[in-house]
């Protein structure tokens, strides 16, 4: 955190509700983007205008619910925050929600796109680790960013299967504001977790973070990404935003990654995260989706290099009328690549889940293994899950399985626990907790496991 954000006044166009080309340009100027970045922003606006709004007939969007969208009532940005002297000096509305009980290698807290607090351990900086906000990085690290920024999720993303219209990624490209940049030099091991926390605190403004993470050859990183937001006022439209993360894991590198989405119950938003893996690289990625009114999460793993391996695990817990729209891709682009994906959810009340996951074995990906499982517990009859696991195989000598299972809490399990003296509510709670344990157990930070367990536990409620 070397450069302070300039204190330029927020341009008037960004205070007006609605998204326009002028606003996109004004945002780039206000954030002091270099020219090469302004050009990308302009591409983003063009793509946003060209790509039609996805609807019920758009492949990959049939089960999505976009009724929360009120684009003409959202401001593109809001004023940048004051910097807090330390984490504890941040507003309690945020600090109360964040688990700071464990040591970190770096923490960056962004409020409405601006850095509110940020620190990195000196030892890491001395080793050449870079951890800063995106805008500073775009100005100071062009050498690293030009080849990576908006490459994995470009302004005009023409995604193949599973189809995703790229609409809200384009909106992010035109209005990105805030985000992190992490760079770990070759053969450098960062085991103390590096954390980014994105907090949308102005319900009238959209949030559009865009982050880039590069783990260079043979390096190692533990990275935690956390998304939070405030409640929308009574009668106001949902808090809205679209975030993008591009993660590059180079040859022989390893990333342990945790994404936590705990938006407020009146937030609707999109998160698109893509990881690409170099030769013999490995990612252990756990996605935790607990918040939001309607949230769409796209988690893609590109097994680009030979011999790469990816474990993608996820959990979601839906209550009230929450809608989770989850899309995963295991894209095998090279021989001898392994991917294993497990997504577990529990839904109560009238919560809904739409899950689509694809294992894509490209031509030339012989000797690869792809596994995929989605298991959903329906805790009430009124909850609903649609699960669509998909396989596309274009080479021989591969092994792929996918499975999907949706049902209530297993009475056999509950009965067994009851025969050992546990009353029914406790037995059911234990089975539901157990359902998530194979995912939670894979979180790279021990302390965070209990935090997530507690968050799940609170949502189980009184049974």
């Amino acid at each position, binding site marked *: 955190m070397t450069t302070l954000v300039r204190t330029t006044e927020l341009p008037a166009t960004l205070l007006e509700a609605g998204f326009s080309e002028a606003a996109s340009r004004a945002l780039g100027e206000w954030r002091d983007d270099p020219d090469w970045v302004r050009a990308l922003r302009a591409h983003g606006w063009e793509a946003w205008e060209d790509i039609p709004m996805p609807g019920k007939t758009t492949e990959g969007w049939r089960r999505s619910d976009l009724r929360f969208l009120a684009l003409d009532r959202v401001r593109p940005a809001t004023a940048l925050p004051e910097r807090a002297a330390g984490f504890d000096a941040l507003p309690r509305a945020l600090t109360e929600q964040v688990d700071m009980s464990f040591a970190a290698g770096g923490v960056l807290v962004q409020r409405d796109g601006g850095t509110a607090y940020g620190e990195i351990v000196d030892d890491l900086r001395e080793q050449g680790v870079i951890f800063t906000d995106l805008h500073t990085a775009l100005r100071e690290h062009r050498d690293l960013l030009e080849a990576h920024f908006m490459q994995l999720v470009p302004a005009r993303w023409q995604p193949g299967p599973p189809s995703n219209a790229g609409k809200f990624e384009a909106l992010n490209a035109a209005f990105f504001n805030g985000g992190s940049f992490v760079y770990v030099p070759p053969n450098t091991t960062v085991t103390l977790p590096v954390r980014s926390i994105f907090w949308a605190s102005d319900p009238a403004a959209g949030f559009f973070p865009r982050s880039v993470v590069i783990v260079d050859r043979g390096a190692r990183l533990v990275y935690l990404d956390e998304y939070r937001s405030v409640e929308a006022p009574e009668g106001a439209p949902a808090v809205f935003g679209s975030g993008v993360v591009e993660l590059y894991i180079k040859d022989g590198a390893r990333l342990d990654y945790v994404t936590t989405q705990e938006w407020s119950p009146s937030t609707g938003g999109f998160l698109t995260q893509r990881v690409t893996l170099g030769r013999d690289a490995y990612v252990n990625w756990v996605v935790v989706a607990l918040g939001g009114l309607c949230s769409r999460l796209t988690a893609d793993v590109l097994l680009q290099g030979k011999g790469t391996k990816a474990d993608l695990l996820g959990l979601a817990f839906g209550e009230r009328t929450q809608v989770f729209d989850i899309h995963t891709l295991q894209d095998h682009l090279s021989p001898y690549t392994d991917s294993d994906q497990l997504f577990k959810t529990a839904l109560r009340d009238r919560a809904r889940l739409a899950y689509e996951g694809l294992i894509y074995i490209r031509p030339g990906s012989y000797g690869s293994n792809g596994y995929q499982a989605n298991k959903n517990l329906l805790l009430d009859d009124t909850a609903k899950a649609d699960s669509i696991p998909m396989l596309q195989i274009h080479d021989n000598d591969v092994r792929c399985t*996918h499975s*999907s299972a*949706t*049902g209530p809490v*297993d009475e056999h399990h509950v009965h*067994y626990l009851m025969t*050992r003296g*546990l009353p029914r509510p406790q037995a059911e709670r234990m089975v539901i907790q157990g359902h998530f*344990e194979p995912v939670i157990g894979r979180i790279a930070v021990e302390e965070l496991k209990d935090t997530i367990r507690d968050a799940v536990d609170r949502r189980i409620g009184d049974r």
Partner: protein
Amino acid sequence: MAAAETLERPVGTDGRVPTLQIEGLHVAIDGHEIIHGIDLAVNKGEVHAILGPNGSGKSTLAYALMGNPRYEITEGTVTFNGEDVLEMEPDERARAGLFLCFQYPTSIPGVQMGNFLRLAVKARFGDKAVKTFRRELQEKLRLLKMDQSYMQRYLNEGFSGGEKKKAEILQMAMLKPEIAIMDETDSGLDVDAFKVVADGVNAMRGADRGFVVITHYNRMLEYIKPDFVHVLIGGKIVKEDGPELAVQVDQHGYGPIIEEVRARGEEVELPEEGGATYAREEPAARHHDPFRSHGRTAI
């Protein structure tokens, strides 16, 4: 219900109410009656063996006593220390001191054995018991030659047959029931595991505990010497006697007993070939796939 030739009733002789008393019990599954009137009284300090061919209703009796909702009690009474068991939920029965050692223990993904045991002990004995939990657990693990790493594993998940049975005995040892029902605990065990399990059970025998050992092999009873033997065929106890009855069954099978019953002019309902009713209804494989699965493809 014509009683079998009743010898000296093993219980109630001193006027006490038996710990577990079953009278005129009829049990049905899906409207089909499996048990046609059983009387059995078990006191602490006693070991009762229930022998019978496959499909005679042995496991049905065990499940019904533990309150499995699939097993409907159509007639009869069961009391435990004088309390009406049939009015109790399975967890209340467990906390009262009734234990079933399952033939096919369910595996529950994500539930750690250690956590689960601690909560079960707490449910039965209260908060105080948690203090001595660790020490006692170590002791029982040693007794059963089980490794500490069991405690981190998910309940029965990926356990071998022998490990599952040991885990059941471990739970019994920690929960210290007054009456333990052991459903075919010997099945699926190799010689070594069998010995460990039998030793574990024997170590728990004593004046403060009664056992109902369900088996169709005599092997179990050579290690765990019963005080009383009951032969269950066609949903009825057709013969009761001391331990020598088990030896007799082992040597001559059930044929002579069936003849004997028929000679008394009673009907004997013989099970269909190969099959216990519960075994068909309760396949072990089901537990590995607890959901209504669909869309599964393996290539």
